[in-house]
């Protein structure tokens, strides 16, 4: 449908912007420094957010604390063998009949060791078959300590659907995938992808809603449970 609205809208915008607007937000940023620093130091905007520790141990602890608040189940695994047994234990606990997954280094062994039917989403698959799966097992791009988030993309988590359709999402990640804040997570994206991914999502806890009397209910439309198997570096 051809139309000239693009030019019309841009013309209106340019006309409107010919008069400058006052920059009111600047009033409070002058003469006020970051605690412990001089007023003239430029602090990156993320510096005002909840603080993030520097050490890997501190980041891990913060991620685990946030996960606890979010009701994400984080289980530490010492090595690859521990991942296999931890995933098998999850399958048994939750009586999984079938799982969805994709091919990724940290998960291949553990998923095939389950001995369950697997719907692989990194090859053509049927949505209905994935919908019947009891769990989706995926990798991720990175983990975000500040928010307790997990960054997934199509490439790292078996497409757009695997991490949201099955009622239980299990992420297998390495502790060295931990980053501080969202800005660090964007750096990871820039390093691993030539162009921005067509799909990326920060998953911060199991799906939830408060739409009925503002009472928290888990598993609104997405997974009711979220488990992170964290392999120690």
């Amino acid at each position, binding site marked *: *449908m051809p*139309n000239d*609205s*693009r030019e*019309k*809208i*841009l013309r209106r*915008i340019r*006309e*409107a912007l010919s*008069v*400058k*607007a*006052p920059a*009111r*937000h600047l009033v*409070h940023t002058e003469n*006020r420094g*970051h*605690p412990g620093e001089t007023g003239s130091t430029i*602090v990156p905007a*993320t*510096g*005002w*957010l*909840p*603080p993030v520790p520097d050490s890997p141990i501190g980041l891990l602890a913060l991620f685990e604390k946030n996960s606890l*608040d979010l009701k994400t189940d984080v289980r530490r695994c010492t090595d690859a063998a521990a991942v296999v047994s931890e995933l098998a234990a999850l399958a048994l606990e939750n009586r999984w009949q079938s799982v969805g997954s994709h091919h990724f280094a940290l998960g291949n062994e553990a998923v095939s060791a389950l001995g369950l039917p697997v719907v692989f989403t*990194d090859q053509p*698959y049927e*949505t209905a078959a994935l919908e019947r799966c009891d769990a989706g097992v995926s990798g991720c791009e990175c983990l975000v300590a500040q*928010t*307790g*988030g997990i960054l997934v993309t*199509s490439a790292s988590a078996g*497409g757009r*659907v695997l991490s949201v*359709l099955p009622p239980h999402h299990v992420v297998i990640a390495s502790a060295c995938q931990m980053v501080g804040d*969202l*800005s660090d997570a*964007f750096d990871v994206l820039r390093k691993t992808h030539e162009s*921005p991914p*067509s799909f*990326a*999502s*920060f*998953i*911060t806890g199991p799906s*939830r*809603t*408060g*739409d*009925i*009397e*503002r*009472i928290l*209910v888990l598993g*609104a*439309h*997405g997974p009711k449970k979220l488990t992170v198997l964290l392999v120690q570096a």
Partner: protein
Amino acid sequence: MSTESVQFHHDADRLTHDLRHRALIQKALGGYYLKRDEQKAKYTDWQQARASAAAAKYEAVNHLDEYLVEFADKLAARGTKVFWAADGAEAVEYIASVARGADVKRIIKSKTMTGEEIHLPQALEKAGLEVVESDLGEFIVQLRDEPPYHIVFPSMHLTRGEIDDTFQKKLGSAHANTPEELTMIARGVMRQKYCAADMGICGANFAVAETGQISITENEGNARLSTSLPRVLVSIVGIEKVVPKLDDLAVLLPMLATAGAGQNMTCYNTLLGGPRQPGETDGPTEFHVVLLDNRRTSLLADPEQRDALHCIRCGACLNVCPIFKNIGGHSYGTTYQGPIGSVITPHLRGLQSWKHLSFSSSLCGACHEACPVKIDLHHHLLQNRRNAIAEKPVWWEKPIFAGFAWFMRHPALYRLAAPMLRLGAPVLHAIRGKSFDPVRMWTGTRDLPPAPPRSFKEYWRDRNAKR
């Protein structure tokens, strides 16, 4: 008075006296205040974070042409069809034509206030398409044939009992007692809808110019399912949603969650940069982004109130507004309720028809304090009042003020009037609010303090005499 104003006063009057409604809203918001304050306390400096967020939006809105073009070009480069819509009708017509062209029958919609603004669901239903809201709160109000009550919490005015009734009547579901059971009923219904839908419709919380991605914030996972399962996806994006850099989201996403719902970060924050790419196995094969003006440019043309376009639709100003808490979301009769709605609706839909919203404010400034991007909301309400009066003066105001000024310049008259007022006070008390009270519009809902035994002038004279 405009018909909108008459309706507003009628609804507001009814709900202000509805104590059950007030208790419900206060209970819902009480939980929000606690969680919001808990999260805000974790920030290194919330006020500085606000300034940073405001700076990002200021940069975007004041260079809107550049960033919009960058955003649209980057999106288009990876196979997304970008459509610029000057008004709602153009947007609706385009989306309907996309649906026709792709042989769409069923549509699943995730929450979009911009879609509400242009009455998109209603228009598509009229075109013979099935449109289902997937956000739980929106789904509930859709079943009840009501507009959303609040831009973030669409069903906060309903109790579980009322929702249970609605589900039993409209879905034929069994009686449910708890929010959890009710949520699971909706989940079951919706699962089938996602898989059967041909088209998904979503909004966008942010549009990232640097990378050509839209960003969608949600908790339920309905937006993720609606944007990844159907073969066609349409996102409707107000032109003011653009932000320059991906890193701007590193501040805006946590702040949106904290201000909007008292969360550290909402459950899903999704970036979409195109349809299914070569080598990918799922996601829509067609992706359309509709950039909507719909008079946003006239708000942009007002430099005094331009920062109202910084709004990230978190709803924080609604949650703290004494007016909203008393009259409720539906009384506004607008897509956007609360202080932000009162500020922008006159720009989007006509000042004279919607000026009454700006007059219905205590100007307490709680909205400005709560706003994560520091929109000067209460001053904008005042400016709307000024602009409305300048455009269409009220004939009796000028003579009244002139008379008052003349009176105040004559101390003799003033001295004479004070004792007379004291004599008249019992009469005023007796007739206060009655049908024959000439100023009952004012006195009907206000107390008149008893007249003091002596005026200040008399007190001062006596005090000095004693010395």
